[in-house]
């Protein structure tokens, strides 16, 4: 293995490094600028170093109620995450066998991924308008007096996010099961395990690291969603929608501080997920096989 690297390696390595710099450079710049001094502006030079803009963000003075938007996004993200993991695991299991409508379901999932988000969002908005009108026309008075709309964060909003996260979850499950050794399940069945026991004690421990990956996709895709949320989220905006609105109105480094906080949360989450995956993998490597260890 003392073969030297060809010239193309160095050229491509340089290109790769440039790509990574392009990918992370801007984020690092706003990270630095978020510590701008109180008199500093949106660009360099740094006018002193301070936590001024973070403090203002925390106090919530200059900007709309970011805290509430933050909590809404967090709650929605968690629900989307759990539903994505559960529904895609179930569907992933189902797709290993033949069932009626399998092909159709697959193509619907793919379509949901590639139909422009604004079209899906508009469709769900129309659906809830029709639903609201129907309820108002047919519902009993005591109910319709109070009723305004069925659309909201955890009805239309949740559905809109799931149409985006579930296809990813399903595709990841396909990738996982394609590499899955089915003999392990057959062995469990031969040893008399019930389907539930096979799932709980054989499949689940093996799948767990991948499921953490699905969870990461489920949460982050929801946490960052704008296009599908735009028509479906109801009266109150999620965090990315507030952020988008702020891009046109806020002209202080406060928006960078917000960016740093948001990115920090994402990174903490990604780090946690990756650490959990590594720990689970290590545990599998340690306990997974007793081959060659005698009786």
């Amino acid at each position, binding site marked *: 293995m003392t073969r030297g690297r060809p010239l193309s390696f160095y050229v491509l390595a340089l290109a790769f490094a440039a790509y990574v710099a392009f*990918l992370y450079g801007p984020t690092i710049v706003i990270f630095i600028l978020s510590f701008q001094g109180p008199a500093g502006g949106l660009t360099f030079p740094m006018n002193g170093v301070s936590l001024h803009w973070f403090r203002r963000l925390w106090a919530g003075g200059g900007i709309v109620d970011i805290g509430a938007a933050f909590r809404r996004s967090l709650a929605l993200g968690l629900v989307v995450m759990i539903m994505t993991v559960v529904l895609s695991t179930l569907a992933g299991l189902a797709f290993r066998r033949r069932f009626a409508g399998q092909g159709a379901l697959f193509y619907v999932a793919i379509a949901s991924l*590639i139909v422009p988000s604004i079209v899906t969002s508009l469709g769900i908005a129309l659906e809830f308008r029709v639903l609201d009108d129907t309820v108002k026309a047919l519902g009993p008075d005591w109910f319709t007096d109070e009723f305004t709309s069925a659309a909201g964060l955890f009805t239309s909003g949740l559905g809109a996010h799931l149409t985006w996260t579930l296809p990813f979850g399903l595709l990841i499950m396909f990738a996982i099961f394609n590499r899955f050794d089915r003999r392990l399940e057959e062995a469990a069945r031969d040893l008399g395990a019930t389907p539930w026991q096979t799932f709980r004690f054989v499949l689940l421990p093996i799948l767990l690291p991948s499921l953490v990956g699905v969870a990461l996709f489920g949460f982050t895709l929801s946490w960052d969603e704008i*296009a599908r949320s735009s028509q479906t989220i109801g009266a109150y905006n999620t965090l990315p929608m507030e952020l988008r609105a702020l891009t046109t109105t806020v002209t202080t480094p406060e928006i960078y501080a917000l960016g740093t906080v948001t990115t920090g949360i994402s990174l903490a989450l990604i780090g946690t997920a990756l650490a959990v995956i590594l720990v689970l993998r290590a545990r599998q490597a340690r306990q997974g096989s007793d081959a060659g260890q005698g009786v």
Partner: protein
Amino acid sequence: MITDAAPARRHLAISARLQALPLGLVFAAFFVLPLVLVVVVSFWDYNDYQIIPSFTLRSYTESFEGCLDELPGLCTIFRTYASTARFCAIVWALTLVIGFTVAYFLAFHVRSSLWQMVLALVCTIPFWTSNVIRMISWIPLLGRNGLVNGGLQTLHLMDRPVEWLLYSDFSVVLAFVHLLTFFMVVPILNSLLRIDRSLIEAAYDAGASGRQTLWTVVLPLAKPGIVIGSIFVVTIVMGDFVTFGVMGGQQIASAGKIIETRLAALQFPPAAANAVILLAITLIIIRVLTRIVDIRREL
């Protein structure tokens, strides 16, 4: 024993359908039915206050208003679609070249699989962070007093700030490439990693140059990944209104923004009609791309 097998299999098939049911229900309620409604409402009438459920082609004729009169010139909607298609083509070409280069480096030049994973992760992590924040983060670089303009002036390459860096076609393309190259890297890398290394050895042994091997062996085998990545990039740019809005300073029209503008005015039927038009064009593009490769076989 043999007599037991058939009912057991049927039992399994039923449970498979039950397992897939929740997913199917979500897609039925929040994707299939909404799409049907978009098509239906696009043929409905409307006034300032409400949607009127009676059949009319009004939304479509209004969308294409004046298109025949202005020939051979382009009317607004055709101009917007042509402009969006142009953005699509530029972003597609850039993400393809950059994405392929990155994936090629990871697949063929990084020898340890640990490093391969770490570097692939480095490319993936930004995908999990906020897109809007990643757009905003170009402002201190590209703005009038930003780093790029500062650098150009310090080096005396320019005597006044370059205005077209931010809130321009340029910044829209830059942001798209920044956000979407990921969608090319992952499927292309997946295709490249599946290539049997002995094929490349064989090409080398048969006297092929590096470039010949790339064009006649690697590239054809990477086609599935390229097509999947292309579908993502093209459909996202076609339907986008957020990136066009934020990076274009709300000044650049796009196919997705037409719909958003109609919705902001609460004109649901015209919005739906434009959604149907956008959907039709997107589906045609995907149809062309999937003729080249069967997606399902590649997973």
